[in-house]
């Protein structure tokens, strides 16, 4: 459906002007912006916005500008609690949140799209360390687990021909550090606390995790091994047991296959018991 209501021209002019003003990055407003504004812009503001008895047109518009930026920055603060603690709130906001929103403005009402776009943007951001990026990926997985649906599977048996997929609220992750344990520790304290205390050491070690929301509505993580990581990553994209068996034979050595074959039934029993797998039809 589409509505074909014609927008009054004067209204559209005001809104386009207002919107372009809101989109001006907030760091430019820190010091005496009004004096830095070009004359024609000041004139335009005064033409459009009626001054109040206490504030001029610019100051009134600035209330909305600040509200816009504080609100969207606050979204990211809440979505990325570990990264905020690692960098400190001020650094996070000035060095990441503002550049991100200056580059990629929110386009719709969904917060999950902001969360996903941020981590995608961060992957190409030149001034980010491996630990910071891993923190962001993990925070993103937690937020996704919170906002994605958990579907109760119709039955707990596995049809080997039916394509299976991991629930949307589950992320399969590989990191260079013991970041999940670290996140748990860091989130026990506020970002203000970590501003004044030494950060704990983040142990470097190749780790594989699964982050999921369970049927009690809590988000958890579990350490998994490399083989579970590989199989669950395959299941994240959706596959049948039949196809998975063929793939296992191609992807792993004989020795590895022997190990996997001793574990596979146990793993699948655990994953189905935890209701991590659903059929593509259920999704």
């Amino acid at each position, binding site marked *: *459906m*589409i*509505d*074909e*209501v*014609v*927008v*009054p021209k*004067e*209204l*559209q002019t*005001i*809104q*386009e002007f*207002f*919107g372009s003003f*809101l*989109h001006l990055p907030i760091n430019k407003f820190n010091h005496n912006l009004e004096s830095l504004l070009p004359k024609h812009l000041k004139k335009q503001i005064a*033409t*459009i*916005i*009626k001054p*109040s*008895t*206490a*504030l001029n*047109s610019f*100051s*009134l*518009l600035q*209330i*909305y500008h600040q*509200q*816009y930026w504080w*609100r*969207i920055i606050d*979204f990211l603060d809440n979505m990325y609690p570990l990264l905020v603690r690692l960098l400190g709130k001020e650094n996070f906001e000035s060095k990441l949140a503002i550049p991100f929103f200056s580059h990629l*403005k*929110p*386009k*719709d*009402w*969904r*917060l*999950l799209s902001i969360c996903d776009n941020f981590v995608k943007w961060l992957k190409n951001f030149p001034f980010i360390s491996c630990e910071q990026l891993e923190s962001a990926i993990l925070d993103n997985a937690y937020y996704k*687990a*919170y*906002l*994605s*649906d*958990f579907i109760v599977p119709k039955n707990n048996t596995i049809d080997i021909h039916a394509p299976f997929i991991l629930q949307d*609220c589950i992320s399969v992750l590989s990191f260079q550090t013991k970041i999940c344990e670290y996140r748990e520790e860091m989130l026990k304290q506020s970002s203000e606390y970590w501003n004044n205390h030494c950060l704990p050491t983040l142990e470097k070690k190749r780790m594989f995790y699964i982050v999921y*929301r369970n049927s009690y*509505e809590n988000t958890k993580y579990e350490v998994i091994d490399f083989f579970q990581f590989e199989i669950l990553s395959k299941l994240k994209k959706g596959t049948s047991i039949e196809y998975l068996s063929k793939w296992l034979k191609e992807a792993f050595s004989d020795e590895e296959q022997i190990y996997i074959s001793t574990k596979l039934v146990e793993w699948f029993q655990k994953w189905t018991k935890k209701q991590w797998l659903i059929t593509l039809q259920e999704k």
Partner: protein
Amino acid sequence: MQKQTFFPNLGIGIGLRSAHYHDILTKKPKIDWFEIISENYMEGGKPLEILQKILHYYPVVQHGVSLAIGSPTPLDFSYLKKLKELTKLTKTPWISDHLCWGRLPGAHFHDLLPLPYTKSVVNFVVQKAKIVQDYLELPFALENLSSYLTYNESELTEWEFYSEIVEKAGIYMMLDINNVYVSSKNHGFDPIAYLNHIPFEKVIQMHIAGHTQKDHYFLDTHNDHVAQEVWDLYGMIYPKVKDISVLLEWDDDFISLGDTLLEANKAKQFQTLGSKA
């Protein structure tokens, strides 16, 4: 007052906020009803799971913040579709959003931005509001904003603009008394004059909330107790709105669920006064 035979008076409600989920689900306190911010549950996930549990025990009314009806972009029907799906679950007796704009092509401002009060904007919003109400197949109400600026172009008062849209579109009012007060302080109009011009037969629900007084303006923060001036305005119009559902909005610097309810239930003082009179 024909309206009152159609819309139930749900009593005194509070906004459903995540800070209180645990207490609500474990203690199941006596609360007449909850209002939800629709968007908080439209992405699914844990919030929706919790809402489904709460719906077993309490009536829930939907209130939105992202429709941005006065925006120059066409209505977002993918948003409206999800909104409508949620109404099937909540069985909300009516649905509301704000009389504002907040989108441009390729941009969403996540804010409730004020419109110029002109005849052409009235006609523009009226057409959109009719489409929304028809599409949602529910009584649709628009809420008056707290605003911090007005436009030189405006040719109507806020209450004329608001009333005319509601009347012409055949929709309803979600009257926020705190917003009337905050805007009156920011723009220097008389809140009593505003309320004297409201077609109360069109009011489907009411909001009360706290605000913050800054150096040079009043900010609608929903993070404090309701100001006495706002209670006074509510008391003044109470004889006209005694059968209309009222809701306390508290969205930041949360206090306990019990204290939130105590604040909301201050609205009962007028019921007592009314019965004594």
